[in-house]
């Protein structure tokens, strides 16, 4: 869906995205990885259509398509979870419930369906005890869960997530991984995250960006066995161990510890 796509922000000298090409087959989930400032969020914005809309003076070349046409911002079709969950809050509602309702009212969804969706999300994210609390009074992790709930409540065709595991604890991350794996059966998911173990558990394809350039596009196992420099990535320890030991005269014990590492993972 992207062919030689490049984008340069207005008043800058270098492209933020440089010659990105990949095709994501229907039903495949994409993880975008790379160090900070490598263009991950820009790419997510481009796929959402936000980039082109907010920076009409930006320099674009190549083609980008979502569902076969140029992406436009379409809130009824896209759920977008921003990296900063506080930024996601509307600021106009007084309770967690009405915050979820607000995100749906934008889409002109009938009231009775909104009610059902609120209940569905509150139970899914276990927010019952917070339902009547002010969105701004939530803790860091609770705010993240609310931001996720507001977007999944839309039942979007596309769910784009920018570092959704941030401010969650292990249990929250495990919950999110399971949720995304269930959602991907009906939703196109594209996510940016530093946690490669989550990307590997959710995404069928991974795109590795560095300085706006595409270093790699393929499956997670292909990435982990490829020869490209992944020094700046958070490669999971057990995969790293495996790579370090490949090609060495492994002792029995090494192999044993390796097996254990894998089991634990």
């Amino acid at each position, binding site marked *: 869906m992207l062919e030689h796509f490049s984008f340069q922000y207005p008043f800058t000298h270098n492209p933020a995205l440089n010659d990105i090409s990949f095709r994501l087959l229907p039903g495949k989930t994409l993880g975008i990885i790379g160090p900070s400032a490598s263009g991950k969020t820009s790419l997510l914005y481009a796929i959402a259509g936000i980039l082109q809309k907010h920076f009409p003076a930006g320099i674009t070349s190549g083609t980008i398509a979502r569902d076969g046409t140029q992406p436009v911002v379409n809130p009824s079709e896209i759920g977008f979870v921003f*990296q*900063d969950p506080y930024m996601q809050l509307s600021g106009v509602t007084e309770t967690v419930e009405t915050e979820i309702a607000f995100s749906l009212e934008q889409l002109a969804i009938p009231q009775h369906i909104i009610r059902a969706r609120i209940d569905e999300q509150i139970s899914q994210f276990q927010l019952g005890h917070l339902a009547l609390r002010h969105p701004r009074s939530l803790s860091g992790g609770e705010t993240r869960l609310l931001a996720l709930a507001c977007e999944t409540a839309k039942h979007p065709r596309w769910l784009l997530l920018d570092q959704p595991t941030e401010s969650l604890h292990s249990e929250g991350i495990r919950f999110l991984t399971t949720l995304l794996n269930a959602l991907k059966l009906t939703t196109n998911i594209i996510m940016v995250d530093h946690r490669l173990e989550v990307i590997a558990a959710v995404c069928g394809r991974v795109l590795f960006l560095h300085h706006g350039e595409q270093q790699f596009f393929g499956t997670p196992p292909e990435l982990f066995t490829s020869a490209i420099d992944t020094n700046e990535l958070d490669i999971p320890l057990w995969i790293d161990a495996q790579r370090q030991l490949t090609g060495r005269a492994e002792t029995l014990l090494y192999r044993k510890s390796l097996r*254990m590492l894998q089991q634990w993972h």
Partner: protein
Amino acid sequence: MALIQFTNVSFSYLRNVPVLHHISFSIEKTERVMLVGTIGAGKSTMLKLAVGLLSPDNGTVIVDGINPSRNPLHEIARRIGVALQNPSDQIFSITVREEIIYGLHNLGVQETSHTLHRIADLFHLTDVLDKHPYDLHPAQRRLLALASTIAMNTPFCIFDEPTSGVSKPERKLISAALDQQTTAGKGYLLITHDLAFGMEQCDRILVLNKGIIAVDEAVPDFLRRPDAQGILKANGMQMPIVPRMSATLAQENIAVLLPDFLSQLPGKHNENTL
């Protein structure tokens, strides 16, 4: 005398929903302590109590001999530097340069250029000093918040989720900055969901569970406890892989190989996590 002393502290935002329940602990000036607990456990609340942004319903909080809620904020600010969970809550200046020295100016320090350059260098912010903080990438904004906290040169700091949203290169910078604090004889309290990072950077662990301090122990002692994994699990946390691995290997009598094995891996795995 302890730097931070909580005695029998209780706190709730809403009546009938207690967040902290008769909590007592103390932290010395040079200690490196991690505070963990599930989402909404009350960790950030403890931070706010420690620096006087909230005052306890019951019990007392004493910082370096004074009561934070009865003293002006700047009295605490010269004793404890704070990096908030959400960097946007603490960044107000219009350039990175001003943000880093903002706190120092507030404390009346005139000569700031040496500190500015040392700290900017430490956090790799030298090239962006004239940028607006909102033109930084989120991970850099996190570094900026930490930089301006450390620039205050307080004897002690509290960091709320310092590694949230950052990737490996920034994590290394943060780790180096914390180590530098230690070398300078300064302590810190690290609030974190990132147990591997916490266990590498801290000597003592506090687990906050259902409003009470369920664990207050030296990290190596905690790791040796047979129920350590269970305690973490009950709090929604997973034991980092290195201690989990080493525990099993020790049972199998092949612990000697572990340091050798780990030395093959990039990253930092020190005595504590072993």
